[in-house]
């Protein structure tokens, strides 16, 4: 992992803060325990989930009608970075960095949304119960997130260092989701122009019910199609979308969703150029799906190369990530 000079500086500050609290910690000098993930891969295992088709009786392929149309005014994305700074007897102390921003398009070039400054936060994630310093919420300017308990319950996490690490990293991811959600909600309150959200929009009821937010999911750990429907999705050709279906709630707000193939998958794996789109419930779902698909197809150029996910990633999202890497 390559840390920026700014990152090194923050890391040293964090270590000083930790040592003021826990003088006997072992500093981790290698990069091995680090996690630098920018997607949502930290959570789910691959799975298939059935979904209710809202456009006809069964899921089928639809050619997107009309030319691609550039409509998205803003692009929202976030990043997270987590690194074990030190440990005491295997109990990890993680420095987590979370950032999120909206980049708006002005004259075909991207600039940061002026209504809200980008979110950048750095916190120390540590199981206070195992470090004998319960009750602390801050040290030397670093906010402390207690990772002693799983899912904010009163049940202590396993003392296994791997389990403690996993909880800490999950909390970092959750903070990132929160940062993105805050920004998306503010956009939906302040701006009526379409917002391209990297990932789903069901995490916020306000965003999920807004007509301006469109979630574009690039990873497909969960596929919302089984049986023949899955064949349809895997067989989508460039410029085709699936029928609209209702994404199962699973603790999230209801949204409509459909798959869209951005690029010709011939010669590539089955997920090549495949995205899943989420939009608010309501109206003529077929017409909305067609319209929003045209907007998303318009973002297929320019390519997001050299990013490895270029086949599914909009250039606005890549720009957003580059921006966040620069400032965080």
């Amino acid at each position, binding site marked *: 992992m390559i840390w920026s000079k700014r990152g090194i500086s923050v890391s040293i500050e964090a270590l000083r803060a930790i040592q003021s609290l826990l003088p006997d910690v072992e500093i981790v000098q290698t990069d091995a325990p680090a996690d630098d993930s920018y997607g949502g891969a930290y959570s789910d295992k691959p799975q298939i989930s059935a979904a209710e088709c809202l456009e006809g009786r069964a899921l089928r392929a639809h050619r997107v009608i009309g030319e691609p149309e550039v409509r998205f005014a803003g692009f929202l994305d976030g990043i997270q970075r987590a690194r074990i700074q030190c440990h005491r007897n295997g109990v990890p102390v993680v420095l987590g960095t979370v950032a999120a921003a909206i980049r708006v398009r002005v004259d*075909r*070039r*991207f600039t940061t949304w002026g209504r809200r400054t980008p979110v950048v936060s750095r916190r120390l994630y540590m199981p206070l119960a195992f470090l004998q310093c319960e009750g602390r919420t801050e040290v030397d300017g670093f906010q402390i997130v207690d990772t002693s308990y799983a899912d904010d319950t009163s049940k202590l996490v396993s003392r296994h260092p791997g389990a403690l690490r996993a909880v800490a990293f999950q909390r970092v991811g959750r903070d990132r989701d929160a940062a993105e959600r805050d920004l998306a909600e503010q956009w939906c309150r302040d701006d009526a122009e379409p917002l391209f959200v990297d990932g789903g929009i069901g995490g916020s009821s306000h965003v999920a019910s807004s007509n301006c937010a469109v979630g574009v999911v690039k990873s497909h750990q969960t596929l919302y199609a089984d049986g023949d429907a899955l064949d349809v999705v895997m067989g989508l050709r460039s410029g085709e979308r699936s029928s609209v279906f209702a994404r199962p709630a699973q603790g999230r707000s209801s949204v409509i969703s459909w798959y869209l193939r951005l690029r010709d998958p011939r010669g590539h794996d089955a997920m090549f150029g495949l995205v899943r789109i989420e939009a608010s419930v309501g109206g003529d779902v077929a017409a909305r799906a067609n319209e929003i698909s045209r907007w998303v197809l*318009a*973002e297929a150029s*320019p*390519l997001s*190369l*050299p990013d490895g996910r270029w086949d599914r990633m909009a250039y606005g999202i890549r720009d957003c990530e*580059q921006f966040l890497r620069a400032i965080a």
Partner: protein
Amino acid sequence: MTQALGRVVATERKPNTPHEFHFWTALDSPVGIGTIVRVDGRRPVNGQIPRVYGIVTEGFSYTDLVTPLHDVLSHDGAPESAGFASAERAEIRLYSAAVLRQIPEEPLQPVPMGDVFLALEEDVNVALRMDGYLRDGSNTGIPIGVYRAGGTDATIFLDADFLVGPEAAHLNITGVSGLATKTSAVEWLLSSLFAHFPDSRGSIAAVCFNVKGPDLCFLDLPGKLDDGDRALYDKMGVPARPFENVHYYAPYAARGYALNTLRSNEALAHNVTPLTWGLREVLQYAEVLLNRDDIDAKADALIDFITRSVIDQTFTDPMLSRSHVVQSFADLEDWFRDVLRGLENGNKESWRTHHVATIRKVRNRLSNISVRCAGLVTDSGPVSDLPFGEFEDRATYVVDVANLEEDAQDLIFARVVSKLREHLERRDLGVKHVVVFVDELNKYAPGDGPDTYVRKMLLDIAERGRYLGLVLFSAQQFRSQVHKRVVGNSGTSVFGRMDPDELAAPGYSVLSPATRTKLATLEKGQLMIRHPHFTQPIFVRFPRPAVMAGRLGAEQYPQGGEVPLEVAVYRSLRARDSSVTLQAVEDAIGLHEESDILRAMATTLRERPADVLGTFRARLPKRITQSAQSRPSVAALRGGRNDDPYGA
């Protein structure tokens, strides 16, 4: 406070140093190669916020593409579809700048991170250290042009003490031919120098050698200027006028009586003076005309003997048939003939230690000079010269040698510069400083080739002239081919549009590739300046000179043709006195010999009398006119009619 236009950046691969830094700007910033910028540091050093001035020497632009192939793929190989992409790639404008000055100057540290601003006029003064010589009461600034970038117009001044001396001196201009860079720049700079040369530094004049075409032949006539030029003149405080006090000098054509110059139109004859030299003037510089094969120690001794013991004095010798007073090439030829006749009659092989062969050789070479330099060197001796000792402040003396043979050009150049030097050493030239402008330095002071008298003299001016007030403004197309000591001693160097081949010479490797590219594509009216106070070259604009362009002048004032003697004399005299008429000149000339007429005319022109025609008449040899001749009286025959023996 102006808005920041960029930010300093440094990476491990591209770190900042005390002499170079990097910064990025917005895509639409007005920064370009040659732009002067200011960096304001953030952290104080020794209690002072560092401020760094730099000039952009290189620019970079790139996007987040790793390979061009990605862009091809982005647009399916169809360039026309690129305009339909939803967004443009992230792009950067990254610049490298060379440090001009750091404040504080100590400790000298790498350029700090900070905001970058476009330099304002006052910043430019500080950056180029002009604040040191533009102070009230001791202002020695000579405007050379206007630095222009992003709305900043700043006059760039040269320091007179480093342009004319005594601290440094001399100026050298390089540029391709045909783009009016070299001559125009010198004409402009002389105007500026005359307008701004500080009174405290004394008087100044210029001697310009017009070596080709009509370039410098119309300095006293107004040229065409547009509003942009006038604005530049106003900005720099230089009157947009032609030179007011210009004197032209040109020898006669080899055959005839017309001056050998493109400024021979009758309407412009008022300030054109013939340039003619006699034996004494030429013999002092015989070395210029005689190559090393001619001049061995024996010949040199004989020439020295002639100069010291024969010229301008009554020379007698028992061997000679008569005494000689040698004042002209004709007299010298008579003297040689008498000497050789004496040797033959006495059957001797040497005379006064000089062998007959040496005498014959020197005779042959010297006699030849008046033929090789016909028009300039006279056989019979009338001398018309530059007004050494009476040079005027802010006057320009143009010596037109454009149409002369190489020997004659060398002779004129050598003698004029030597005379200037002699008078400046004696402090009796009339002015304290003289700027000598020589074009085509490739020819007169080449880096290789024979060590000619002219090259030695140019080297001498370059190395020692500044102590005397003798300043060399030189120009050439290929600086790399000029003698290193001549260009190396030029305190100020000016570059116009350059030939790419020339820019490939090792001497230009100190310039960045972008600066070299800019030099190869400079517009007319743009120059790059190097001056002792400037730590980096600066690009400036200068206005068109306010004088008539040579080509236009040649069209408007066509060259006068060959004329009869009386017309040539009439034109020359009328230039001094408009009341002189052709009839009066014809009457005065009468039946006089041509040589007498030319001598009288030259003497009159040199003396500049109030009564021009009267003086001309007086300088002609006295002749008894037919009417005044008294007939011898004849005695009357005796007797009258009545005495006729055949009378009636």
